[in-house]
């Protein structure tokens, strides 16, 4: 073996790049956190100084990233098995589990303290609760114990707009909880659609996904039921302080499309799905990404137009 080959094998294991550590923070999830927290902050009735607003979003994003690193630390064993996750930094051998744990803990503490100092203690405490909920309640406790794991995990992902709102106002009201409901109720149909066409992944990792424990027929029913409840909440939000005509128009179109997709999924059987390689499920999954982005985008639009007398009712 040459010096170079020895080094090549050692460096892969011992020297991660900056990007590998960044990947521990789940950047794609972080982008959702940033966007929804920003909308929560902007939709709040009290404005904040741009520097404080920027700091608030940054620390909420870092807190979200920290919980992602802690999730990867705990789930390294199942990440190694699933095709979707086996290229993550720990299973790929780029970062040690201990490093992910240290980074996650350090960034959690830093983000909570800095958010409390930059905005208010209530916002900091709520961010701490969100990290605890995602890491301990979801990742450590319920993810491997119940097929409702996605529902519970969805709650953690739904908190950022509430934190954004609290960061701006220092108090709570009904509107941020409607934004919470949007993400919370959107998460199960989004992930169950994914589980329908990525089925072998969850089977192999022994994660009690609804498709595995209750069967695929039941999962299709669950998707429909959650989509109906989601549509009710999404449309109701239009008539609150964060809604308005733009939001209502967007919600009407998207919920009609989403409901149509959910009904199609519910009516399909496995043979047809195999034949067209889960075309409807894949389309529904892609639509779900647009669904959440455009709902929050519409809330943001209403908030931005309000100072000009155009947003809201």
């Amino acid at each position: 073996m040459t010096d170079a080959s020895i080094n090549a094998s050692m460096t892969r294991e011992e020297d991660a790049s900056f990007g590998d550590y960044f990947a521990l923070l789940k950047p794609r999830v972080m982008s959702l956190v940033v966007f929804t927290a920003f909308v929560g902050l902007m939709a709040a009735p009290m404005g904040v100084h741009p520097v404080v607003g920027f700091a608030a979003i940054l620390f909420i994003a870092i807190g979200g990233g920290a919980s992602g690193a802690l999730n990867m630390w705990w789930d390294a064993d199942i990440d190694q098995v699933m095709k979707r996750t086996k290229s993550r930094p720990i299973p790929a051998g780029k970062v040690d589990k201990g490093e992910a744990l240290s980074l996650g803990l350090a960034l959690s503490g830093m983000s909570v303290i800095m958010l409390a100092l930059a905005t208010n203690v209530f916002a900091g405490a709520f961010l701490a609760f969100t990290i605890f909920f995602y890491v301990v309640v979801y990742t450590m406790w319920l993810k491997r114990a119940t097929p409702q794991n996605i529902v519970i995990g969805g709650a953690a992902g739904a908190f950022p707009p509430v934190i954004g709102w609290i960061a701006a106002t220092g108090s709570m009201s009904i509107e941020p909880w409607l934004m919470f409901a949007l993400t919370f109720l959107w998460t199960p149909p989004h992930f169950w659609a994914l589980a329908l066409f990525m089925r072998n992944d969850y089977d192999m990792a022994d994660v009690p996904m609804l498709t595995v424990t209750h069967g695929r027929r039941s999962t299709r029913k669950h998707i429909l039921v959650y989509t109906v409840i989601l549509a009710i909440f999404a449309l109701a939000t239009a008539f609150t302080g964060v809604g308005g005509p733009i939001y209502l128009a967007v919600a009407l179109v998207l919920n009609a499309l989403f409901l149509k997709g959910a009904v199609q999924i519910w009516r399909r059987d496995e043979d047809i799905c195999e034949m067209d390689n889960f075309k409807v499920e894949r389309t529904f999954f892609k639509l779900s990404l647009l669904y959440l982005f455009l709902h929050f985008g519409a809330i943001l639009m209403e908030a931005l137009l309000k100072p000009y007398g155009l947003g809201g009712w």
Partner: protein
Amino acid sequence: MSLRKEHEIHSRRRGRNVGVGLLLAGFVVLVLALTMVKVTSAGFTFPEFEGTE
């Protein structure tokens, strides 16, 4: 086979160090900006310490 002067490990380490350095510098600037915003805001009062009137 001799080791090259500039091995891939060196460039990777440099990239990591530059990244951490930039993040720390950004953090310092952010804390400074936050401090300026807080102390120049309308409702700001200096905290009272023991021995001060």
